[in-house]
């Protein structure tokens, strides 16, 4: 089963990391990613820019374009991984490995992927 591992955290906190802190977290995450890649389990990985850079298009007969993220929440979607996991336990274990990279208090949401089309740009 393919899982999308969605990373949620408080972007106020994450954006206030110094460059060194940020790089240290990214380096630790890279170790986990390298392992997943070697096992042939890693799909696309994305880190999103802050929600202040987001625009929302709300569907309707006349779609509405709004500045800002879809929802005002305490924790924001900051990025995601696509990972092949045999069982939910594997997915949980992978997320736990990723979680060790920083002591921030965010969450990972594990969403099984229903449709996947990796072709296209960068694939």
């Amino acid at each position, binding site marked *: 089963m393919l899982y999308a591992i969605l990373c949620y955290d*408080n972007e*106020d*906190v994450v*954006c*206030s*990391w*110094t460059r060194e*802190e940020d790089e*240290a*977290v990214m380096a630790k995450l890279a170790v986990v990613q390298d392992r997943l890649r070697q096992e042939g389990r890693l799909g696309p990985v994305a880190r999103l*820019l*802050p*929600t*202040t*850079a987001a*625009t929302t298009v709300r569907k309707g007969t006349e779609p509405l*374009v*709004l*500045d*800002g993220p879809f929802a*005002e929440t*305490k924790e924001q979607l900051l990025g995601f991984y696509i990972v092949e996991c045999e069982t939910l336990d594997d997915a949980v274990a992978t997320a736990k490995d990723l979680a060790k990279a*920083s*002591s*921030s*208090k965010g969450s990972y949401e594990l969403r099984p992927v229903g449709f996947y089309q990796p072709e296209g740009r960068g694939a």
Partner: protein
Amino acid sequence: MTDLAWIDGALAAARPQAVAALLRYFRDLDTAEEAFQDACLRALKAWPANGPPRDPAAWLIMVGRNAAIDQVRRASRQQPLPPEDLLSDLEDAEAAAAERLDGSHYRDDVLRLLFICCHPDLPATQQIALALRIVSGLSVRRIAAAFLVGEAAMEQRITRAKGRIAKAGVPFDAPGPVERAERLGAVAAMVYLVFNEGYSATGEAVAERASLADEAIRLARLLLRLFPAEPEIMGLAALLLLQHARTPARFDAAGEIVLLEEQDRSRWDRKAIAEGLALLDKALRHARPGPYQVQAAIAALHARAGRAEDTDWRQIDLLYGTLERLQPSPVVTLNRAVAVAKHRGPAEALALVEPLGGRLDGYFHFHGVRGAFLMQLGRAPEAREAFGRAIALAGSAAEAAHIRQHLDRLQADSAEAIGAAR
């Protein structure tokens, strides 16, 4: 990162919102700050044991408010006459607390907190120091280091600035739309000042002052979250991010300034550029241009040029022309002249800057830029004189050293010319 580092980060991130709400309750800056400090101390004890709260800012506001109310009550028991107006205010605040803690009312609170720092009576440096102390929560020691003054002197400056604000009276009524827009404009200008203080740092304390640029970006993002649909705030944030992206390439190993044209563009911060360009795109959709958007658009043209020679100087010239109309200033014209020199040559550029001499005579960059145009036109003696004026006005050793390089080149050129004549 340790647990403690996370708590520090969470406290810093919650600070503007929490202090702003506490200021609304207590209507006194010192009380609000003390209440916040108190709440932080309690957080350091409670959070590692109980886990972090779902909403750190709301937790800090509640705990800070209760702690300060306790203090007032204790004090009132010791005094024969309780401060009646203060106590009745607190009861009002308590009744409103639950409803207000949902987060949607923070906007005017945070804007107020920022706005009181830009009181027109305060000189720019005091506005910056106050904002860094109160809103960003930087220690007095760090602010003092950034401004190259002693800690005691900075402490005194901040105390004096707070005194002035208290005397002037803080506006606590909810602002109307016009007033809100005015406040936002003043606050944006102050954030830009904070950034410039960091960005223009050279020589001593570069690292200390460069961190002010990070603080300014944090404040700009804060404004953007409060006012997500204001194109000028998007422009301001974009401008700061695009300028700041060049920081890793702006100084060489010896701390000397590296000019834009000579910078190693592979060292620019691509992520900051991506964010800046995204914000500028968002702003332009609104079709409501303003000075920050135009300046961000200029910075974007530099960011988009893979090599210095790919820079679209004609477009930059046009954008500076727009900026001159929106915000006439001899400094803007001087900048336009640099773009003009690039695509129409130094003669036209020189003609553009000559009339500015009266107003910019005390400005380092005026003489530096004018000298460069004269040098390109082969008018060496005049160039030398202009560079001499620039050196005399240089604000730092790095600025002076940069002009000296020009003088050395003139010297070498004339030696070569003499050699060739022989």
